[in-house]
């Protein structure tokens, strides 16, 4: 127990606490002007809107923890979403579970592709995932022949799946909550998570203590891919449409959520709580923009500004006062 308390006061914990307060202040500020923003219905809607971002950002966090980055998540999501939609169109009677499993399985494979290239060939993650991003997008076009799968071509239960409610929250929200809870617990309590942090924090030291950093990278990309696949199925059934360009550029929002949530791009630093807060922060901004009368076209600009502020602050924090020469 005392270790847990200490961990609560670690650097990451302090940051999460401060950022949590900031997020609450933002929420409070919006509520002060628009009291309706705090209504249970609106908060549930906010959670529902942010759920997919939360799942993807948690997966992305693992990749960034091991000094990588996955730019292909949105393309992976779109490809798996299309697969699920095509499957549902071809076999409407098969139910939801096979479509979900198909999407998650395909996503796992696509993520493992990234992971293998990074692990076995030691290719730079940014180049690998930039490449697979455009390959995956192209494959969607080939699969769908450039056509859309529309709402009327999807089975009713497929469409109903993320929308079902339990205790006032949607299935989609519950999935995000469960995944987030799993991450919080697993990252603090399991050995593989400890290895993951070690591999990202100092790969050489990790190697000396018997941790294969490459394997950890592979694992991170694979989990990230699996989550992207699952999210693809959910995205398609929630928005009731699948086409080549769904979630185009969404990877940037996912990475933004991680960076805002305190995940260090240099690897080894970050917490699930911080990432979830980062997503909620983005979600609050996104859903309050229309209330303030700002066009949704500003969302991307605001994300960019928030990313830059977050990374500038974390770069400042790392700076050592006694550094004579930057280790560049």
């Amino acid at each position, binding site marked *: 127990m005392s270790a847990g308390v200490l961990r609560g006061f670690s650097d990451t914990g302090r940051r999460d606490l401060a950022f949590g307060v900031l997020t609450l202040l933002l929420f409070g500020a919006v509520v002060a002007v628009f009291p309706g923003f705090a209504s249970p219905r609106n908060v549930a809607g906010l959670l529902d809107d942010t759920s997919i971002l939360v799942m993807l950002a948690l997966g992305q966090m693992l990749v960034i923890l091991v000094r990588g980055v996955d730019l292909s998540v949105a393309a992976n999501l779109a490809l798996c979403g299309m697969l699920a939609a095509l499957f549902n169109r071809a076999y409407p009677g098969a139910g939801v579970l096979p479509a979900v499993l198909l999407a998650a399985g395909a996503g796992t494979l696509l993520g493992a592709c990234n992971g293998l290239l990074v692990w076995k060939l030691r*290719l730079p993650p940014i180049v690998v995932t930039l490449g697979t991003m455009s390959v995956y997008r192209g494959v969607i076009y080939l699969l769908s022949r*450039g056509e859309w799968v529309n709402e009327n071509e999807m089975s009713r239960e497929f469409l109903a799946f993320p929308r079902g409610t339990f205790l006032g929250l949607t299935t989609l929200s519950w999935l995000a909550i469960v995944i987030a809870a799993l991450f919080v617990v697993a990252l603090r309590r399991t050995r593989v998570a400890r290895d993951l942090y070690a591999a990202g924090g100092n790969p050489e030291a990790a190697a000396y203590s018997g941790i294969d950093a490459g394997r950890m990278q592979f694992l991170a990309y694979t989990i990230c891919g699996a989550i992207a696949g699952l999210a693809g199925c959910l995205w398609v059934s929630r928005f009731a449409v699948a086409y080549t360009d769904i979630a185009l550029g969404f990877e940037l929002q996912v990475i933004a959520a991680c960076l805002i949530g305190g995940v260090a791009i240099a690897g080894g630093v970050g917490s699930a709580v911080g990432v979830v807060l980062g997503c909620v922060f983005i979600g609050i901004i996104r859903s309050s923009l229309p209330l303030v009368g700002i066009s949704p*076209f500003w969302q991307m600009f605001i994300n960019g500004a928030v990313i830059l502020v977050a990374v500038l602050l974390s770069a400042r924090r790392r700076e050592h006062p006694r550094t004579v020469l930057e280790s560049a």
Partner: protein
Amino acid sequence: MNPARLLRWEAMLALVLVLEIVVFSSLSPYFLSVDTLSDATFNFTERALIALPLALLIIAGEIDISVAAIIALASVAMGLAAGQGVGTPGLAAIGLGTGLAAGAINGALVTVGRVPSIVATIGTMTLFRGAAYAVLGDRVLKDYPPSFATFGQGYLAGPVSIELALFVVFSLAFGLFLHRTRWGRAVYAIGANPVASRFAGVAVDRYRFVLFAVTGLFCGLAAVLLTSRLGSTRPSIAQGWELEIISMVILGGVSVWGGKGSIVGVVLAALVFGLVTFGLGLMNIPGIVMSIFTGALLILVVAIPALLSRRR
């Protein structure tokens, strides 16, 4: 990479180029005409113009993912100015100036803010592209004066377009700078070992800043050419170009880890790349399918040296 290996990589690119010409001319009877080849150059000159400074940046161990977003920002700035009645020279100046300013912001983030260039330019990519969307929304700007079309559509002499001439001139300039000057050698040194370079008295951060600024300036130039060629600005202009431009540089034999590469390679890669996309276009293959090719090529080109070095 020693000169012999460098030569081999470039010889391979030249061979691929010849192969491409043979294949495409046998597939399409229209391929091997001066007019077709002249048209084909429009496919890559704008991108290749950015690949030149980006090659220097990558050799110096940095990267800029915001290049396409800078094009969008500069194009929007020009479009707004054109709406206010600014003339052609003014528009070109605004395009170049916007690019330079955006590049300087990247440079400042990396050198003053000490943010790794990947993160900094992911941030500015979102910021710049976001600014283009924020300003334009779903509108289109197309109040360009007729004379503005010269840059992207005009010809210098015969089949030689202004874009092509610019590319040739700047290829030579960048080649001479990188391979024949002290400053060019410093760029290699910074990429190979920034700390040692700093100890050797190279003003590492000044080089980095200038390289980012110059990359931005060339994005501005590309924005002038592209906007002039299309005659309109949408916030989605040049979407996905960063992938193609980075692919060109890597295909040209520039190491993603920095310290290695040559301008000859990048120029050859630009030609190879331009001809492939043009040839596939001739065969009516849609752009999104070409992106499979581009992405696979990018991974393949970095994977081949990795596979070869594992053998030994």
